[in-house]
């Protein structure tokens, strides 16, 4: 991976002016279009600031000049058709894309003011400040208890009372405590899919992350388990800053405070969820949320 010090995003010249109707065609033709960011987003206090962020996989550019603040202690959903770059953007937040050889980026992201892509940034320390939950639940092959306290263990914490407390608090925070409190030392693999996913969320919040990244967390779950995870996301609101990627529009509308619509690696429109789903500014966003394309 190659990090360039100088941002190459178009700063000097404004992006070519395009009207709402041809915005998507302009994007498809590779032209820059301005993002439509609602004022409410800019008024919120950000926990994470994505600043003119570009990313290339080899010669192919996957993210184009993304600039967006992620509000503190709120749930922000990234929506858009497959290949729009929402998962790439999410993975860039905790530098998972560092693991991909051909990836090159410009621009920056700042977590509570600290540059994520500063060459001096310790990536392991950075990842401790974030929690991530993937599409498929990935509990470690160990007990429920050990899964939850894993982050503390690798940090050298072995005080039983402290670990017990974190385990209970995290499982309660993930709305799983009542279901597993009598079998904390059973294998996590024996839990149902929905329980496993909530366990992964418990594991993520055990380390008290500054941002929780959820990459389509319900796509492998049935409707009942999905409902429980969505309820949990609602409960996390106000206590954690959550950035969630979802294909499910209703999930975005039900669980998030802010919604960003992406298309072909660009941020098209970003606003409050109620604004995006009742009165989007751009016709393109309207066409996407009403299912007219994508």
């Amino acid at each position, binding site marked *: 991976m190659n990090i360039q010090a100088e941002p190459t995003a178009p700063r000097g010249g404004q992006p070519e002016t395009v009207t709402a109707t041809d915005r998507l065609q302009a994007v498809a033709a590779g032209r820059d279009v301005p993002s439509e960011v609602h004022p409410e987003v800019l008024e919120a206090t950000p926990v994470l600031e994505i600043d003119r962020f570009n990313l290339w996989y080899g010669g192919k550019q996957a993210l184009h000049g993304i600039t967006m603040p992620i509000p503190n202690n709120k749930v922000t959903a990234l929506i858009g058709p497959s290949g729009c770059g929402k998962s790439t953007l999410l993975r860039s937040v905790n530098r998972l894309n560092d693991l991909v050889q051909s990836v090159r980026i410009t621009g920056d992201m700042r977590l509570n003011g600290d540059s994520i892509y500063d060459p001096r940034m310790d990536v392991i320390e950075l990842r401790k400040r974030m929690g991530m939950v993937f599409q498929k639940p990935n509990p470690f092959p160990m007990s429920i208890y050990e899964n939850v306290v894993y982050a503390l263990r690798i940090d050298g914490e072995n005080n039983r009372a402290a670990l017990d407390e974190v385990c209970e608090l995290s499982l309660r925070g993930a709305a799983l405590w009542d279901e597993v409190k009598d079998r904390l030392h059973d294998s996590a693999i024996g839990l149902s899919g929905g329980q496993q996913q909530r366990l992964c969320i418990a594991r993520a919040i055990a380390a008290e992350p500054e941002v929780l990244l959820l990459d389509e967390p319900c796509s492998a779950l049935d409707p009942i388990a999905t409902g429980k995870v969505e309820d949990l996301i609602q409960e996390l609101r106000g206590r954690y800053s959550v950035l969630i990627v979802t294909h499910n*529009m*209703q999930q975005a*509308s039900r669980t998030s405070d802010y919604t960003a619509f992406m298309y072909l690696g660009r941020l098209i429109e970003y606003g409050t969820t109620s604004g*995006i*789903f*009742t*009165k*989007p500014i751009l016709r393109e*966003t*309207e066409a996407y*949320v*009403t*299912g*007219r394309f994508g």
Partner: protein
Amino acid sequence: MTHHIERQIEHLKERILRVGTLVEEAISKSITALINRDTQLAQRVMSSDEDIDRMEVEVEEECLKILALYQPVAADLRFVVSVLKINNDLERMGDLARNIAKRVAQLTAGEPCVLPPEIRTMAMQAQDMVKECLDAVVKGDPSLARQVREEDDAVDEARQKIRRRVIQEIKENPENVESLLRINSVSKHIERIADMATNIAEDVIYMVQGDIVRHRSND
């Protein structure tokens, strides 16, 4: 799914327009019956109200079905919510046309009494507003809807003129008090029809632009 909701929305649009056409006809016939003292036509208006009531319920059920099965958002959501409200206002307009028709029979049976000329003008203005607001629904035209809102003031003024005239007439010819009160009541119904047309126009603005303009002037 996408095509399904588009079909449902199209179907709903056709149905609300059918209700609109029936209501427009009922209003027009009730006014004609009033001016011509045509009790038979008035009777037909009264019977047609049942059809309007039945269709109103069907449209509401259709809206609820779309909300439950398709969870529409953005323009689709605004359309369904607006249709629910427009449907309700149209049904009320149908009731008002029926009330005017009822007064025709009473006026014809009662003591002879001349309709104030303002009633005819006011009725035409209100009918124009009804036609325009329905056109605005069909075309999704917010500027036509704004025009309808502006026209309401003229109808309100005409209503006040008629009210003052009726009061004057009652003083001068107290023996005609019943008929004069019926005329006053007819003018009130026409004014309410214009108010409903204004409501529909405001729903059209919300449907197309997402702005709630109720309780606000056009400026």
